């Protein structure tokens, strides 16, 4: 899955994001939900499938952005 971002009014919901991006619930990680990235830009993020990310109209949302694994740095191996 990938991260995508979308601009929505304050207190936006995942349902609003799905509608704005023209997606269905099956396209998104509903367990992850909608995360406020930057309140000064009304910018939100969500996780979507690769296929859904490629369908998104660039005028409606931005991405796909990578969602790489992250690991603890220590102890050095």
């Amino acid at each position, binding site marked *: 899955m990938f991260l995508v971002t979308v601009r929505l009014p304050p207190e936006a919901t995942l349902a609003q994001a799905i509608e704005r991006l023209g997606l269905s619930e099956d396209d998104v990680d509903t367990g992850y939900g909608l995360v406020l990235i930057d309140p000064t830009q009304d910018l939100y993020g969500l996780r979507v499938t690769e296929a859904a990310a490629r369908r998104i109209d660039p005028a409606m949302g931005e991405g796909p952005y990578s969602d790489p694994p992250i690991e603890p*740095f220590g102890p050095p191996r």
Partner: protein
Amino acid sequence: MRVLIQLRPSSDLVAAVTDPAVSVTAADVAGGLPGIALDSSFAPVAVPRPVPAAGGDPLSMSGPLTFSLAAEDASVLVRGEISDDELSTRVSLLPGTRPDVVGVFADPVIEPYLTCGGDPPVGDWHDVERLLAVAELAAGGLDGSEVALAVLDTGINLDHVSRHLDREVALDAERSWVPGGVDGTPGRFDVDHGTMCAFDALIAAPKATLLDLPVLLSRRQGGSALDGLLSDAVAAFAHLREVLGAQPEESRALVVSNSWGSFSPRWDFPVGHPGNYSDNPAHPFNVIVASLEQAGADILFAAGNCGRDCRDGRCAFPDRPIVGANSHSAVLSIGGVDVENERVGYSSQGPGRLAKRKPDVCSYTHFSGSKAFGDDQPDSGTSAACPVAAGLVAAVRTQWPASRLSPAQLRTLLRRTADDRSTAGFDYDYGYGITDAKGILAALRRRKDA
């Protein structure tokens, strides 16, 4: 970077250098080299000229050679230092400006041994306590009281931390955050990397309140058992912005310690792709890092364990291993030194990918501390150095909330007071130097009196 500069001065000067009865200084040979701090303690050394046998190739070093120290043949070496920032520019422009410069060469530190992964502990956490002047910090009222110290990692085992510190420690479960799909309660996770980080963070800030955010335990689709996904960290940072927003504006104090990162470009879009993370300040995680810092949080990231001398086997970036948020301009990127103030060989070197001047500073690692990995195992990696530095920041925040000292001002304070390990200021091994608690205390006193 330390360099050796080879020059071909006048034959009279070369003759003086080769004459043990004559004293010649580096300035006599190389005075006025722009942007190079000459090492006056290093006596100029004559270098003989390789002379090929009659009819031999004058540009080959593999044929038969003799070596001439005659004044008209020999050259002279002096030692100096060039700022890492300007290294390539100055090295390429210097011979054009000064025709007597023959070449500029690296002068690497030669040491019998650098601490590496797998080595036994160097000192213990009481040494770290002493080096961080914890008693003096506490006497000045800087003990972390009322400061929230968030550890984003594999979860904290509070009993273990408390037992090994031999004191009560505070953790706020209400303000902690557990990713969806992760079973467990803040403060009650298995003893692992996150417990080590929590222990180390409390060395300098014994009264700070821990927040437990086990982002590396997430098993979301695409992750694995002992790692998480960057999206989990995005969600954790969004939670921390709410935590910060709930604090009164005049007393905001939230320190965020991150001893993790991305080891490989394999799961990332290529550099230059708009969805890339490692080199792209517009990636959502890099945006939320900037947003949380702007709201008043101090964010620290470990520089990583991909140092040239003994890199972690997982390191897969071919160069510049301080990537993504670990190299963000709005965070402190922390390298590692042992308690003998020597850089550990695995501590990642700059330049960083988002901001060049990384690491910012170094802090202590590879000491016997939490025993999270066994009684004889050190708290190691820049994983330990980062929370040690985070604890120092949390101690400062006890009396200096973000309203009095912004996160940017605090970063400047740590850089400015750091114990510089080179003679040219910033370098890519130590950054601005090793955090200096006494220097910070003195600077804060001056600021208070002003």
